[in-house]
């Protein structure tokens, strides 16, 4: 997984600073350092990136649409419009990916979107966006298990990153552009107490 996504896990959860990063531990997938299993952590490059201003595309339109469609399947509507589309989770992701230190995540999601489209064409003879929701689920599962990807691309990491960002888009403070109408919070009976952020 891109280092900038893993490292956003805050000061990893333990006593002095709290456990807010605990959940992200699992996304980090960084095995504990032990003498039994010497760790060779991924040497993911972190390069200073540039922020992308509002009005400028984060991803090419085609792959933005692929990613948006994927997010809709990660947190789909149920019997009512209670999913990522209604909560505008992708609006959050689009906003978040503009930050300068998200360069590696942008690259990961871009590569993932390309892979989704390639696998869709291979399996279905049509693009990911044109596939039915059920077909899209099949393609996501295939990519998650490593199908259709070059060795340098980890489909599991890609899906994990997309899931993490979709969850953020579902449950963030609405000031960040997602969780429209506090849809996510309402779904889990969460009442966010004040003071809350006024700006993202």
């Amino acid at each position, binding site marked *: 997984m891109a280092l900038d996504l893993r*490292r956003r896990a805050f000061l990893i959860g333990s006593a002095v600073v709290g456990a807010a990063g605990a959940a992200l531990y699992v996304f980090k997938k960084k095995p*504990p350092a*032990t*003498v039994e299993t010497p*760790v060779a*952590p991924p040497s993911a490059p972190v390069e200073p990136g540039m922020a992308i201003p509002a009005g400028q595309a984060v991803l090419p339109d085609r792959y933005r649409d692929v990613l948006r469609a994927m997010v809709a399947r990660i947190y789909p509507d149920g019997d009512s419009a209670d999913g990522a589309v209604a909560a505008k989770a992708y609006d959050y992701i689009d906003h978040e990916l503009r930050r300068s230190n998200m360069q590696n995540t942008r690259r990961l999601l871009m590569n993932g979107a390309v892979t989704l489209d390639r696998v869709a064409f291979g399996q279905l003879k049509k693009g990911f966006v044109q596939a039915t929701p059920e077909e899209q689920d099949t393609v996501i599962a295939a990519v998650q298990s490593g199908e259709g990807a070059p060795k340098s691309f980890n489909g599991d990491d890609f899906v994990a990153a997309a899931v993490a960002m979709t969850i953020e888009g579902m449950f963030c403070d609405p000031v960040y552009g997602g969780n429209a109408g506090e849809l996510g919070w309402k779904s889990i009976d969460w009442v966010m107490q004040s*003071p809350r952020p006024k700006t993202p």
Partner: protein
Amino acid sequence: MSESVDVIVVGSGAGGGPVAFACASAGAKVLVLERGKHLKREDFVYDEIGIAKRSVFVPSAVTDPHIVIHQGGGAERTDDGWIACCVGGGTVHMSGFFYRFRPEDFRLRDEMGPVTGALVANWPITYEELEPFYARVEQIIGVSGSAQEGAHVSPRSTPYPLPAVMTHPGGALIDKGAAKVGAFSFITPRAVLSRDYDGRLACHLHPLCGSFGCHVGAKSSSLETWIPKAVATGKCELRAESRVVSIVSGDDGRATGVVYRDAAGVDHEVSARVVVVACSAVETARLLLLSKGKAHPQGLGNADGQIGANLMFSTLSKAHASFDFASSPAMREPGSAFLGRSVGDYYFGPKGVRGGGAIAKAGGLNFLFPAGGPVVQSELAATSDGARKAVWGAELKKKLRWYWHEQRQAICETFGEYLPTAGTHVALDGSVTDSLGLAAAQINVARHPFDLEVSKYLVDKGLAIFQAAGARETWTSNIGGSTWHLPAGTARMGADPKTSASDKMGRLHGVKNVFVADASTFATSGGWPPTLTIMANALRIGEGIAAAFTRREL
């Protein structure tokens, strides 16, 4: 140098705050230089994305990286090893679990005997010497705890100044589980106000606490306590966004002052009779190594290569539990988000766990609810036990319904001893620089096999307590991990310059007027989170400096 003070304190957190307070209270002219911003209560909002997902408190690995090299592995550019850079440091957003170390921690080399491959040492001070400072820190900043912990913790000369913070009814399940396995759980002491204290408001039990700053000031951080108390003496000035780039020394080896860069990028040189370094153990070592001079060609106080050596963290592992609301209705109850139980019965494990010594040092167990709010906890739910692939689609929604409506999860964090080894140390990286062009800290890690043994031992105890408490499901994560934000040992106190970097008063060997006052001075990692011990030791060191001034030794 046009500006001159008595004492420059580099860093304003758990180490720097007490030193500034002690020296200023004694009449010394003190300047505290803090590289981070001076955030105020009104800056602390409950913004899970901003706080928990954007690492607003720590520098970016892009611009100010640490380089971590595990034995046998490659180099990783990371923000591991950083703690908050703001006035108050990591205490600003700590959970505030404030335990004392045990007396045996201070004589661990004697207690354990020789351990092959480890650089275990005794502290040059005893628990009994530090105890009065523990007591005073608790009183000065406001620590809340319960007398019921009794003999299960370190001896105390004074009661807690405040009763324990209200805990969740689910804590009773942990009490029951601990009792079933023959252990005793006590309410975790916290640097959080259970009642109004010293002009600050009591904790209002906000569901988001650990990792967040407190907007009512109930968290007894250095920001809320030591620093304002030091400034109130009229003898201490605080300068935020002032990043010390070098400690300047003369040909005689004494420090003459520091150079710092302000927020506008302008360098300033300030002279001082004493410089105290308290930047957290990785950055303290880095600053000392960067501060070369004619008399210190290998870095300040590094004639024997001891700066950066003996790096430790805590050996952190986690036992997790899910309690069904149906079978554990107490967990459904609203109320405090603070589960708040600790178990110290396994602080010393059975002989053989650590091997080689008279006792087998292990560590403490801290039971808590997962911190964070809907974002962080939902991500936890999405990955469950950490071994599976992330779930998505209908399965994700089902998982979240279960997570938020049918059960409550708890975590047992274990704080095992972390043995220092020759391969675990801080150095300057030869190729990576920070945003100022200075060599980045290189964190080398070569774990001792005992750490893993202890981690397994402790996490099994946590699992047993959860299971006895009625948990429906239990699992573990992070076995043998590290508390990356709690570094220690890189300027270890000791009598011998060949095996330590500073004397028992925190003064660098070979540099008469430079002191270290953070966890860098620790000889052992301890078996609980170290923040209270950092403060107590820093207060001791600060009062030692003040006394030396009085004796005209500095």
